[in-house]
């Protein structure tokens, strides 16, 4: 099994490197002079020269990449064109905020999703199942940014219960919860739908296996069957949980911009609007790294639960 762990770790490295190549290439994909992509328009000639040498724009492309990679490894993600601040600082703060939102939304999606999925599977064919399935399809089909807007319309504009914007100004748990409530729900909808469907399908597969039917016929307590189903569907469920958490980190872009939540998504939105490529690169690289490590963790966790997977 440790061989599998080692192999997975090794595999993650070229994936990360490949991702970094793509991020690096963004600057050169952009139309126009790459230097314009990293420097504000009104920079002096001296500043441009200095940046050119620092980034190595006059050197061949592979060398540029290595120079950039080295800087990234040391934590230097460049400077924002708009604010002139180091990207790494803004990204760090934003990442913290996004993680909070992603975690809270994941909690909601996972708990409700798994509950609905299991409920659906154990009551297959009955009204409850059809209801849950319908809810799941709705969840998967709804554009979360639109859902956010609707939530704002209903809860902020019409009912005035919950705030529409941003992180809380006042400290304290209640203001925090009030501010995070709507974005959490909006972000959780799609993962909720996906998780419900996957959990239902995985649980059904196991429930319909012949030996489970045999066990139930012998009168095995419902609770034991339940535990058995849970244990055996755990790997599949874990995979989808990991994927959806990643989706929420990325998908938060849209929800955060609706709610002006000061996370990485908001930063990305701003960077897109201002064509601030260093910030774009920094945020995407950090998020991608996070995602790869997350997938790695999920894979390894799965192996712990079900060693058969490791026999690749």
């Amino acid at each position, binding site marked *: 099994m440790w061989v599998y762990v080692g192999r997975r770790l090794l595999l993650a490295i070229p994936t990360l490197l*490949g991702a970094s190549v793509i991020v690096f290439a963004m600057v050169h994909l952009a139309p126009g002079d790459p230097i314009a992509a990293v420097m504000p328009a009104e920079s002096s000639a001296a500043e441009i020269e200095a940046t050119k040498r620092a980034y190595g724009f006059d050197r061949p492309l592979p060398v540029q990449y290595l120079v950039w990679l080295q800087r990234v490894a040391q934590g230097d993600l460049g400077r924002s064109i708009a604010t002139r601040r180091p990207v790494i600082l803004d990204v760090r703060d934003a990442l913290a905020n996004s993680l909070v939102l992603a975690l809270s939304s994941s909690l909601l999606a996972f708990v409700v999703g798994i509950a609905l999925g299991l409920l659906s599977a154990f009551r297959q064919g009955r009204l409850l199942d059809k209801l849950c399935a319908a809810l799941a399809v709705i969840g998967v089909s709804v554009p979360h940014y639109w859902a956010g807007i609707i939530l704002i319309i209903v809860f902020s504009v*019409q009912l005035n219960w919950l705030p529409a914007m941003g992180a809380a100004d006042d400290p304290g748990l209640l203001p925090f919860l009030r501010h995070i409530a709507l974005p959490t729900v909006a972000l959780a909808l799609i993962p909720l739908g996906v998780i419900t469907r996957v959990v239902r399908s995985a649980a059904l597969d196991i429930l319909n296996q012949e030996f489970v039917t045999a066990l139930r016929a012998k009168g095995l307590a419902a609770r034991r069957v339940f535990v058995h189903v849970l244990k055996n569907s755990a790997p599949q469920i874990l995979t989808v949980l990991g994927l959806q958490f990643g989706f929420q*980190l990325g998908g938060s872009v849209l929800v955060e911009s609706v709610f002006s939540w000061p996370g990485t998504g908001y930063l990305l939105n701003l960077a897109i609007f201002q064509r601030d490529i260093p910030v774009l690169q920094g945020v*995407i690289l950090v998020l991608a790294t996070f*995602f790869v490590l997350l997938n790695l963790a999920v894979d390894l966790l799965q192996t712990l639960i079900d060693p058969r997977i490791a026999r690749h």
Partner: protein
Amino acid sequence: MAPLAGVEAATDAVAAVPAAPMSYWRTVGWRLGRDRTTLAAGGGLLVIVLAALLAPWLAPYDPSAGSIRLRLAWPGTPGHWLGTDEQGRDMLSRLLWGGRMTLVAGLTPVLVAFVVGSALGIAAGFVGRTTSTLIMRTMDIFYAFPSVLLAIAISGALGPGLANTLISLSIVFIPRVVRVAESATVQVKGLEYIAAARVSGAGMGAIVRHHLLANVLGPILVFASTQVSLSIILAAGLSFLGLGVTPPAAEWGLMLNTLRQSIYVNALVPALPGLAIFATSMAFNLLSDGLRDAMEVRG
């Protein structure tokens, strides 16, 4: 040729001739026809697609023409059934024309991904170890990004515009199709009828054409159909962020963005474009669910 003397005709098990045996695809069609939910979803989708296609004839107004006097009129206003947007443009017309954009931006990347992804995936599964490793490891790199981020990364670099959106979304979906295609191909490749075809002297091309494709395209198609709704949401999402279609073009995601500020004035009109996205996305999901159920090989 008459049966050999002494050879008993194989009449065991299977009963006397029933109605003409149904080919696989006809069975699929038959199953689909009996599934009411799928039929309803298909019908709804047909309405949406037709409305979008016939927009030039159905739309009562020019989608870009608006008068500030009439801005943010509520649905039900005479002359403007679905109200007007923040620039006074008729919502119904913009929704109809916007549908064309959204549908194109949603369907095209999946179609491209289906063709390119299938080709790459089948090659990876069928040709050999080096090709397979090359293709699959390259796809893994794209998998390092959540789909939304990848779309933003590429669109962010390329810039706004419909063409760039199509390119970036295609790149998002191709790796997924490749994975499914490779997996299906590897599974079929190991089956003995492929070996039998080789023993008959068939070359790689003939085997792929006659034996592999028919058995592999089914699962790939089902998977592709599940991605359409995501593609629509992403395409509209990109426009929402300012990366997709640019104003003054009508596109549902873009409309959602520009109408966002107006929710304090008129709560209903801003909800409409999102409703359209939602309805279309849901119809595709139900349809693909039905397709998957109908295509399940039984027996």
